[in-house]
C-alpha cells in the first residue's frame, strides 16, 4: 500500500458489515449429526477455506434490523416514484404466498400432485386475458423487461413464420422506458426513435415516415411516460398495421387502465403486465417482479413453453385435469420452470379481492390522485405537457429565479419525510420530476406532499443552499458517487486480500 502524505480521515462506520461483526466460533444455526455412514469426500476436489462470517442468530437479526431502519419504504411513507406504481402491498398477499401448500411444492412434482397450483395458474391466465382483452397469456416471464424480450421474440417469430424476413426495424417513441430499446437490441433489431409531438403524443407524421415493409413493430407505452393517453391511439395502431407491423404495448402503466380500456380491444397485438406494479406485489428492494405477456389469437402459437391448459375436461364427478402444453410454434422457454409463482399468488389474491368494480376503482382513484396533485402543483412547477393526465404526470424540477435543480428538490423532499419522485426521466422533459401517487394514498397525504413541494419552491428562492446540500434530516447525506466509481470497492475485502489470506 502507498502511504498517503496527508492522512485521510477514516470514514465513520454507522453499521459494521457482517464480516466486521464476525467472531470465529459463533454460529447462528446448527444441523443434526449424520444419521448415515459418513462417506469419504473426494479430496482433490475440495476447497481450501470458506471464510464466511460467523455470527449468532441474535447478531444477524440485529444487524438486519439496524439496516432496515436506514430504508424508506411504502410501509413507512409516501413513495410517489413515477413509472414504478409504488402502491400499498396488502399483508394478506404475503400470508397467502407462504401457505405451506404453495411454498413447499416442487416445480417438477407429478402434475396430479399439484392440481391446486395448476388450477390457480390457469385461472390467472383467464383473468389476465379478461382484464386485457387478449386471447392467450403466458405467466412465465420474470419481470417487465423479460416480458418485453418475450414480446419482441414473438413479434420476430411471427414475421419469420410468414416468410417475412426483411423486417428489422423496431419503432420506439422517445418517451419510452430504456428497457424497450434494450430488449429489442438484445435480439439484434435496429431501433428507430420516434419523436413526441407538442401534446405529448406520438408524432404521427414522423411515425408514418418510418413505416415500411422493414418494420417489425412499434413498442408503445400508453399511457406514455408523461402520464398521457395518446390521443391518436387508433390512428397509430392503424398506421403500424397498415405496413404489416405489430403493436407491442408496454404494460408498465396499466394501473391507469383497469376496467377503463382493454388494450386488446384497442388493437394492441401483445403486451406485458407488471404484476409488481399494477397488481400490488411488493418491489422487494429491486425485485422479484413478474411480467406475464398477453397476445392476440394470431400470436398465441408463439408463446413461451409451457403454458397451463385443461388436458382432460372431466365430468360432473371428476374435476378437470390441468397440465402443461407447448404452443406449436413456441419461441421456447425464457426461464426455468413456470414463472414467479410466489409473485403470481399475491397478484391473484389481489384480483380476487377486487372483482370487476374494484379493479375499475383502482384506476379511477389512481387517476384522481394524480390529477389532484397536478392541480395543486401546476402554479408552482411548470408542467410542459399540461392536460388531464392519467395515473402520473411530469413537472419540471426548476424554480424561477433560483439555480436549484430537480435533484436538489428531490433530495430536499426527503427532509419532509417523502420519497422523491422519479427524476430525470422521461428524457424529453427538462429536469423532470415524474410523480405517480397511486390510488392507495389519501387526500391528507397528497396535501402534505403538495405543501412540502410548494414550501421547497419558496426555499429555493430564499435559501438555495439548503436544497443544494439536502437532505439534512436523513441518516445519511449525499454520496460521493465519483469515489465509488473510481475506486470500485465492491466487496468487504479487496481481491488481493483474499488471495493473500
Amino acid at each position, binding site marked *: 500500500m502507498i502511504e498517503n502524505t496527508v492522512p485521510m480521515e477514516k470514514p465513520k462506520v454507522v453499521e459494521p458489515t457482517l464480516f466486521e461483526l464476525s467472531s470465529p466460533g459463533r454460529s447462528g444455526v446448527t444441523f443434526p449429526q449424520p444419521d448415515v455412514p459418513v462417506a469419504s469426500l473426494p479430496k482433490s476436489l475440495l476447497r481450501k477455506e470458506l471464510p464466511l462470517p460467523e455470527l449468532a442468530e441474535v447478531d444477524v437479526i440485529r444487524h438486519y434490523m439496524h439496516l432496515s431502519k436506514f430504508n424508506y419504504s411504502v410501509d413507512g411513507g409516501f413513495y410517489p416514484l413515477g413509472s414504478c406504481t409504488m402502491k400499498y402491498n396488502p399483508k394478506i398477499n404475503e400470508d397467502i404466498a407462504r401457505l405451506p401448500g404453495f411454498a413447499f411444492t416442487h416445480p417438477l412434482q407429478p402434475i396430479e400432485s399439484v392440481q391446486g397450483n395448476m388450477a390457480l395458474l390457469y385461472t390467472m391466465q383467464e383473468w389476465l386475458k379478461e382484464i386485457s382483452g387478449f386471447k392467450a397469456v403466458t405467466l412465465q416471464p420474470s419481470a417487465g423487461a423479460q416480458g418485453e424480450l418475450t414480446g419482441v421474440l414473438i413479434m420476430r417469430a411471427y414475421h419469420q413464420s410468414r416468410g417475412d424476413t426483411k423486417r428489422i426495424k423496431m419503432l420506439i417513441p422517445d418517451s419510452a422506458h430504456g428497457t424497450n430499446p434494450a430488449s429489442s437490441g438484445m435480439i439484434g433489431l435496429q*431501433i428507430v426513435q420516434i419523436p413526441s409531438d407538442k401534446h405529448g403524443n406520438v408524432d404521427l407524421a414522423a411515425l408514418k415516415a418510418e413505416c415500411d415493409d422493414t418494420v417489425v413493430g412499434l413498442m408503445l407505452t400508453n399511457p406514455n411516460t408523461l402520464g398521457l393517453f395518446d390521443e391518436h391511439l387508433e390512428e397509430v395502431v392503424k398506421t403500424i398495421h397498415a405496413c404489416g407491423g405489430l403493436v407491442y404495448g408496454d404494460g408498465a402503466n396499466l394501473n391507469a387502465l383497469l376496467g377503463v380500456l382493454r388494450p386488446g380491444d384497442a388493437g394492441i397485438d401483445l403486451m406485458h403486465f407488471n404484476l409488481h406494479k399494477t397488481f400490488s406485489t411488493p418491489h422487494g428492494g429491486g425485485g422479484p417482479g413478474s411480467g406475464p405477456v398477453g397476445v392476440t389469437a394470431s400470436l398465441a402459437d408463439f408463446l413461451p413453453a409451457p403454458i397451463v391448459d385443461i388436458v382432460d375436461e372431466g365430468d360432473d364427478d371428476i374435476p378437470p385435469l390441468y397440465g402443461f402444453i407447448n404452443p406449436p410454434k413456441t419461441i421456447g422457454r425464457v426461464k426455468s420452470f413456470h414463472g414467479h409463482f410466489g409473485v403470481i399468488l399475491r397478484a391473484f389474491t389481489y384480483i380476487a379481492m377486487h372483482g370487476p368494480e374494484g379493479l375499475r376503482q383502482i384506476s379511477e382513484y389512481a387517476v384522481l390522485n394524480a390529477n389532484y396533485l397536478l392541480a395543486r402543483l401546476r402554479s408552482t412547477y411548470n408542467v410542459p405537457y399540461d392536460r388531464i393526465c392519467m395515473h402520473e404526470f411530469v413537472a419540471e424540477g426548476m424554480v424561477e429565479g433560483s439555480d436549484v435543480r430537480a435533484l436538489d428538490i428531490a433530495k430536499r423532499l426527503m427532509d419532509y419525510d417523502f420519497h422523491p419522485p422519479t427524476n430525470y426521466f422521461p428524457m424529453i422533459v427538462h429536469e423532470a420530476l415524474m410523480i405517480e401517487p397511486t390510488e392507495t394514498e389519501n387526500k391528507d397525504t397528497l396535501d402534505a406532499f403538495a405543501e412540502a413541494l410548494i414550501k421547497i419552491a419558496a426555499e429555493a428562492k430564499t435559501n438555495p443552499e439548503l436544497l443544494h446540500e439536502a437532505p439534512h434530516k436523513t441518516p445519511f447525506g449525499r454520496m460521493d458517487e465519483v469515489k465509488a466509481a473510481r475506486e470500485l470497492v465492491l466487496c468487504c475485502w479487496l481481491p488481493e486480500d483474499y488471495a493473500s489470506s
Partner: protein
Amino acid sequence: MTYIPHSPKERDAMLATIGVKNLEDLFKDIPAKHRFPDLDLPPALTEMEAAAELAGYADANETTQSFVSFLGAGAYNHYIPAAIDHILRRGEFYTAYTPYQPEISQGTLQAIFEYQSMMTLLTGMEVSNASHYDGATAVAEAANMAYAQFRGKRTRMVISPTVNPQYRETLRTYTQGMGLTLAGDDTRANLDGGPETIEKLIDENTALVIVQYPDYFGRIYDYTRLADAVHAAGALFCVTANPTALAILKTPGEMGADIVVGEGQPLGIPLSFGGPYLGFFTTQKKYIHKMAGRLVGETVDNRGQRAFVLTLTAREQHIKRERATSNICSNQGLLALASAVYLSLLGQTGFRQVAELCYHKAHYAAEQISKLKGYHLCFDTPFFHEFSVCCPKPVAEINAHLLEHGILGGYDLGQDYPALKDHMLIAVTEMNTREEIDLLVEILEEVSHD
C-alpha cells in the same frame, strides 16, 4: 374490498379542485367505444373469503412437507432457518424500491454489498452483480456478456449437454437473432465423456464455453484442464454452479473460470413451485463493464460516513438503452437478501455441515439403491448430492407407485435425454432422514418385483 382510502366527501373535494364533475370526466381521452368495458370476473371477495379460497387451492396440492421428496433437477429441498423470513417480512426491505436514492436506501445497499461479498467468496470470483432472475437466465446473460466482450466478432458458444436442459433451452431462446452457433447442445451426445468431449468443440471463433458444476447428473469434475484449453483458444469460461456444493468443493475460480453463475434457490429460498428464485452472477473485475445487472460500491457521504451506492450505472438499460448488454431492470433483490441472511446465519460451519450432510446421505442412498436387483448407478464419476439411476421400469411408472407411498420420486431423465430412458435423477439433501431413504429403497425394490 379495495385499498382505496378516500371518503366520498374527500373524493368530491378533489374532483372540485381538479375542476371536473365526476371520475368519468377524467377518462375522455380513452376511445369511447372501448371505454369502461364490463369485465367478466368473479365478484370481489373480502379478506376473510379470499384467505379461505386460496387455502382451498393450497390444500389441493401435495407438498415436500406432506410427502418425502427426492426431487431436485435444479430446485432443492433444504432447511430454511426461521430467522430469514422474519427479516424478509420487514416492510422496510420488501416494500422498498430499487435503491436509487442512497440517502434513504442504505439498508438495501449495504445488504447487497454484503451479498456481493459472500457470493464472490463462494465462487472464487472478484465481483458479483445483485442478481438475475434464476440460474437459467444467468447462463443466458453470461452468453450476452461474452458476446459483448468480443464485440460480436466471435459467434460460437459451446455448452455442455450436461448443463440443465432448461438452462440450455433458455439460452437458445435468448440467443435467437444474435446470429450465434451453439455447439455441444445435443442430448444425443456422449454423456459419459467428461470435460474432454467439450474440449474438442472449442475453436478460434468460440466466445464462451459453459459447463455445470456439479453437472446436471450430479457429477463433480475438475475443470482446470478444460479452462486452460478454453483460454488457449482465447475464449471465456463460464461455470454454472450449485452454491451448496461450493460450501465444500474447489471453487470454479480456482479452476480458472471467468464467469461463475448459478441458481441461488438452495440458499434459503422456498421451492414455491419454481419461483421466484435467484440467479447469481459473478466474474472477474476486468469484465465488469460488460457485466449486466446492478452493482453496489462503497463510498462516503458528505458527513464522512461510510456508505454504499449503485455504481457503474452507465452500463444499464435506463442510461445506455439499446447499447446495454442486457435489458434487466427488476431483479431478485429480496431473494438476494434471503440468501445473504441464510449464509450469515449458517456461517462457514453450518454451511459446510449442510453440504456434507447432503453428500453423505446421497452416497448412502446411492449405495443402497445400487444393491437392488435391476437398479444400477449410470456413472462412476464422483457426485455431490444427486445421482442418476438406471431403473428396471419406466420412471413414470415407478414414480406413480412411490407417490402412493407418500414419496415424490426422482426426475425422469428420459424426458430430456433419449438415451436415458428409464433413468431417474435422485436428489438427497439434509432434509432426508435415514428412515426416509430406507423407505425409498424398500419401495423401489417392491416396484421392481411388480
